């Protein structure tokens, strides 16, 4: 455990110095999601949003800003991790990946440490903005103070597991960049960031089940918008836990395969 903690701390420090070296980086990490949120909100403006609108069957019209805020908060959590995994190509190019894999460091600790550090650095500013915006917009309905930290924890854990899984995929090949295109936009569309998955046609609902963000957002909204009790969420929590266990198992298995693959083909130095 000590090894994990010291490595997590080392990764956080390294990522902070290496990728978040300027206040402009933080500025962009706030401005970009805020712009996305505002754009999404005003995209709904030209449409009829009254109680008899099609969307009202799934989201109360007055709760749309809150729905979008939670959606984008969740999306930013996961988006940061896609970015971080994509950045793995930097380690390949700089030759630092070889120096990491030459060491006996626990590979899983490295992958999750990297994800966690990228996540904390990437979301804290937008997280603060979201909390302030939620307070300003109003409409938060929670059954206890614990609902906010629990929502945060659900997002954090599921995003880190997702990020670890992606980082492992990026270890396989220098050409894994296509995953960014494959995963990023579909995640935004199908996970229920802007529209609830219940409003999707059947085939789209099936796709939405592939993204852990779908389950995480459902629970976060239930906690923050519907005042759900912990007891109401056991089923969803179990489902999310199942998905996360599946992802961790796949990460462990693929991590071993990826390292073996690199050792056999010498692909670690190809970029």
């Amino acid at each position, binding site marked *: 455990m*000590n*090894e994990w903690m*010291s*490595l997590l*701390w*080392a990764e956080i*420090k*390294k990522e902070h*110095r*290496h990728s978040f*070296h300027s206040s402009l980086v933080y500025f962009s990490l706030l401005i970009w999601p805020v712009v996305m949120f505002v754009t999404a909100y005003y995209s709904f403006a030209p449409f009829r949003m009254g109680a008899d609108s099609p969307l009202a069957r799934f989201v109360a019209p007055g709760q749309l800003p809150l729905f979008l805020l939670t959606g984008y908060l969740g999306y930013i959590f996961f988006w940061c991790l896609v970015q971080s995994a994509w950045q793995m190509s930097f380690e390949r190019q*700089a*030759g*630092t990946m*070889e*120096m*990491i*894999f*030459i*060491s*006996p*460091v626990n590979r899983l600790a*490295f992958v999750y440490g990297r994800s966690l550090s990228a996540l904390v650095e990437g979301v804290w500013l937008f997280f603060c903005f979201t909390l302030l915006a939620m307070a300003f917009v109003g409409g938060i309905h929670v059954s206890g103070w614990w609902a906010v930290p629990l929502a945060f924890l659900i997002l954090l854990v599921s995003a880190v597991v997702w990020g670890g899984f992606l980082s492992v995929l990026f270890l396989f090949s220098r050409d894994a960049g296509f995953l960014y295109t494959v995963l990023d936009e579909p995640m935004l569309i199908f996970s229920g960031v802007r529209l609830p998955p219940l409003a999707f046609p059947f085939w789209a609902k099936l796709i939405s089940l592939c993204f852990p963000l779908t389950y995480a957002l459902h629970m976060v909204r239930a906690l923050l918008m519907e005042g759900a009790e912990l007891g109401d969420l056991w089923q969803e929590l179990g489902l999310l836990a199942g998905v996360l266990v599946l992802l961790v198992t796949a990460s462990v298995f693929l991590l071993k395969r990826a390292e*073996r693959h*690199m*050792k*056999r*083909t*010498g692909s*670690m130095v190809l970029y």
Partner: protein
Amino acid sequence: MFLVENVRKVYRIRERGSWFSRQWKEVEAVSGLSFAMRPGSIVGLLGVNGAGKTTTIKMCCTLLEPTSGSITVDGYDAVRCDRQVKALVNMIAGGERMLYWRLTGRENLQYFGSLYGLSGSRLAERVDTLLDLVELREAADTPVERYSKGMKQRLQIARGLINDPKYLFLDEPTLGLDAPIARQLRRQVKQLAAEQGKAILLTSHYIHEVEELCDEVYIIDKGRLVAHDTPERLTRSFCRETTLRVTIPVLPDALQRDLRQLAERHRGTWDVAETDQQAWELTLRSEADLTAPLLSLLAAHQSPVLRLVTEQPSLEDVILQMAERRSA
């Protein structure tokens, strides 16, 4: 003890083909290579480009897996017990990669140290010791991107020593460095073997570096071991010819004739070229030492000697000879 036994590495490379057909080619980078490293010794691994030096080093460092054969490090198999082996080895490569440029020298060492389970005061002490060793204490808190090439290379050395490895692999460590910095690095490498008892394997294109540092040299060609001995013995066994270069002001026909006869008598060769200073430079190559008979001949022809240089064969000649044989 570091033992490499009958190691072979075959890469399977996909050849460019159409969308629907896949063709694979097998390339044997290392073929049946065996060698050993003992504590306190510096071993050279030489060969022309593509000989398999870097592949060998990466297999020794567990970055690559041998296709067959075995690498045993203090009794641990490098494939089955790679975590134990990783704690005992490290690699330093030439060039400016393998560092985080936005981080300072100290932060780089702290990060890489944490990968080996170092933390707290143990890590801080180790980092300070290494910064002193490579004389980077003053620049420790400067981002690496502001370092000169030599400073980056010294930081690489410190990084390679962060886990206090018993076996150290140096892949072209002085590549592109100025002569004084390269000399300083060579001094440090010598100290690591002599004072700290580390076993070091060195590859370098600067042959004089290998001659100066290595106790024994393995020469590989197309992945195969072609020679193994001390640098001196290798040079003697492969290149026995001594080269004599003499500069004289005039070269009459009679002297030319006698020089040719002298060379032929000793199964040597000779050559002549006019220098910029309107003099003649004679080059005689022979397995015998022709210094005395040549000087006698020049004295007999009353020819003054402006310059006389004797060149002993070097390890570089061995490599060049091998490269020539390879292309022939």
